């Protein structure tokens, strides 16, 4: 290098010192800002130890349920003399992380679902049995709900809060206008679909971008065709997916696919519901939460009928009605307070308070005051009351890992390619064996 270069370096040093101080200052400043805020942010903690304070993990993240739950809990705080700290996490995230959540200092009470999905975690000692609470308030619930709240060891782990049926929803005005009749058998259903097509409607709205909505269709066809017992046994891994009975379910479904909305895998259920609101589609098999999309006048126009009968041996004896509720975590910091809260949540008052703001469900408590129910809610009560069997939905009736990693993509595969049922069921069966073996 030339002499010029080294000279320039020496000159450069003068400037460097200035910059160095600036840099140092920056570092110091950021450190100063960060440290107190870090201390402040992680140091706050008012839980634990205080005997009337209960922590509450909630996945009620959508605006309507969130507000409704907050209202119910505030009322509970007053009546039970408790202070409830709600920790709300986004709906899907909460579910995906339940595994790590429950193992690392979870809240005292947390929201969850009934069925196999509850038993799975109870078995692994991630929840505390609350049979003593049930001894007090068990009378609030029907036998079916009791069964869904019980773990494999016979203890209860779950307090049902509300539930909602899955059914075929439609707009009354559309049916009246076109003179449609409510179908009760599959033949009538198919005929109705053809009629709708002729009238320029898409017969059945359909959306499976999120992967789980299509499970409802599978469940119903299976229960109608092969009966509730076979369906539940299949969910629990006790039957083979290569069984001809299962294949026939897919065959039936394939027969109905031409009447379903195209492009389902790119559509969310909200969008599909919107097409029903807009009178572009005639019917939609979904849970009662579809009502969230029906606002104003459309809300009064909403109605449903039970999924039609396929096999007269089974008729329409089963209904899919997922139950949402709450559980007690494995090592709560305030067990007594939490149990009091759970008792409160099982009460008719608590559930009624909730439903005032979120009327797309019905109370689990069988003594709940139904006088304020909308006609739709009353119909839902009737539907569930008249059913012999209640299923919970595919992803709650079976192992979560099987539902998420096998069934979800398999059903999407079926929608894309409904002709290769043999190949599909063989793949599902192989994976099922692998997963259930553990």
């Amino acid at each position: 290098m030339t002499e010029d270069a080294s000279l320039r370096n020496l000159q450069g040093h003068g400037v460097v010192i200035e910059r160095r101080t600036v840099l140092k200052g920056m570092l110091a400043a950021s450190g100063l800002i960060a440290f107190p805020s870090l201390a402040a942010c992680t140091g706050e903690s008012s839980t634990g130890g205080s005997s009337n304070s209960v922590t509450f993990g909630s996945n009620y993240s959508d605006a309507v349920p969130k507000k409704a739950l907050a209202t119910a809990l505030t009322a509970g705080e007053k009546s039970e003399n408790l202070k409830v700290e709600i920790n709300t996490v986004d709906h899907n995230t909460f579910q995906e992380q339940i595994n790590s959540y429950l193992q690392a200092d979870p809240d005292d009470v947390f929201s969850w679902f009934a069925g196999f999905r509850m038993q799975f975690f109870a078995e692994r000692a991630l929840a505390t049995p609350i049979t003593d609470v049930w001894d007090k308030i068990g009378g609030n619930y029907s036998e079916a709900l009791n069964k869904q709240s019980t773990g494999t060891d016979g203890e209860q782990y779950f307090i049902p809060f509300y539930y909602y049926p899955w059914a075929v929803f439609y707009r009354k005005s559309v049916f009246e206008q076109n003179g449609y009749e409510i179908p009760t058998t599959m033949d009538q259903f198919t005929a109705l679909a053809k009629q709708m097509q002729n009238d320029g409607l898409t017969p059945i709205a359909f959306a499976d971008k999120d992967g789980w909505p299509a499970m409802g269709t599978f469940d119903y066809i299976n229960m109608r065709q092969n009966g509730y017992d076979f369906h539940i046994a299949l969910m629990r891994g006790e039957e083979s997916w290569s069984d001809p009975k299962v294949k026939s379910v897919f065959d039936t479904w394939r027969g109905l696919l031409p009447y379903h909305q195209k492009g389902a895998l790119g559509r969310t259920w909200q969008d599909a519901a919107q097409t029903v609101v807009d009178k572009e589609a005639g019917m939609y098999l979904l849970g009662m939460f579809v009502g969230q999309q029906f606002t104003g006048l459309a809300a009064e126009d909403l109605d449903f009928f039970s999924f039609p009968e396929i096999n007269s041996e089974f008729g329409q004896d089963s209904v899919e009605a997922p139950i949402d509720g709450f559980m007690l975590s494995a090592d709560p910091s305030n067990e007594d307070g939490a149990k009091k809260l759970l008792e409160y949540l099982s009460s008719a008052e608590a559930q009624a308070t909730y439903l005032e703001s979120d009327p797309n469900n019905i109370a689990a408590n069988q003594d709940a005051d139904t006088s304020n129910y909308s006609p739709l809610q009353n119909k839902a009560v009737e539907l569930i009351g008249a059913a012999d069997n209640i299923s919970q939905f595919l992803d709650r009736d079976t192992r979560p890992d099987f539902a998420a990693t096998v069934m979800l993509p398999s059903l999407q595969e079926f929608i894309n390619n409904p002709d290769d049922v043999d190949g599909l069921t063989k793949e599902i069966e192989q994976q099922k064996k692998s997963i259930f073996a553990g």
Partner: protein
Amino acid sequence: MSVAASANKPRQDRRRRLLTRRDVLTLGLMLGIPTFIHVLLVWGPALSSIALSFTRWDGIGGLDTIEVIGTKNYRDIATIYPPFYPALRHNIYWLLFFIGVATPAGMFMAVLLDKEIRFTRFYQGALFLPVVLSLAIVGFIWQLMYAPEQGLINNVLGRTSQANFIDWLGDPSINLRAVLVAASWRHVGYIMILYLAGLKSVDASLREAAAIDGATEAQTFFRVVFPVLKPINVVILVVTVIESLRAFDIVYVINKGTNGLELLSVLVTNNIIGEASRIGFGSALAVILLIISLGFILYYLFQTFRKEMR
């Protein structure tokens, strides 16, 4: 003084003799502390994951609930796991697209913008802007473009009714390419900035000399500038490979990586994060991804370092 000094003695001796004990200690700390943190939080867990890939575990309970099952996970992946081969294909396609289209585009833009022209900051800004955005936003913005009935593209094409809409994101035969466009939107700006930084550091005299010799711009670039930029080229290539093998975010935000958008990274996530995880199985998938990435990078690094040692 420095000229005479550095010209005379062999450099190695000079360096060794001038490192005091304090210097060695300083160097040791400077290298040691970061390495410790890095190994503890990254390599430790990575090796544990490799170990876990030979087990079966649902992530619940202590380490005593882990069950060793040998290579069964790998065999399952190769034989009975339907999304695996599609995911592999998609990753390869992604890689080829980036290497062949997106990265050269970024380099091309950098070369164009390396000249002293007006508005260069505006052009750079416009191209780099997507890089600065979070993946959730990129995914969302492009869903606004691609939505079947409400999206910009279909509306402009006039195909928004039930009968004729183009299902950009829901149709498995085209959605990967649609997503690649969105991903490239971001990738091009990223490569452009990296390459621009490199171009700026090229000695201007080299270019002037070539210009005086009568070389055209293209010749100057390919024969003079490009070879000098070897370190930057290495970085660019490595970045491209990383980005394509790691592609996860956009796909996950759009549809959780299903229905034509399967990728190895998403498969790993779906099996590990979740209610009842299949930790062993997911770890095996992760190890496969790891081997593919490491294989490429190690090969390339050895190439580079071998040449420099000559």
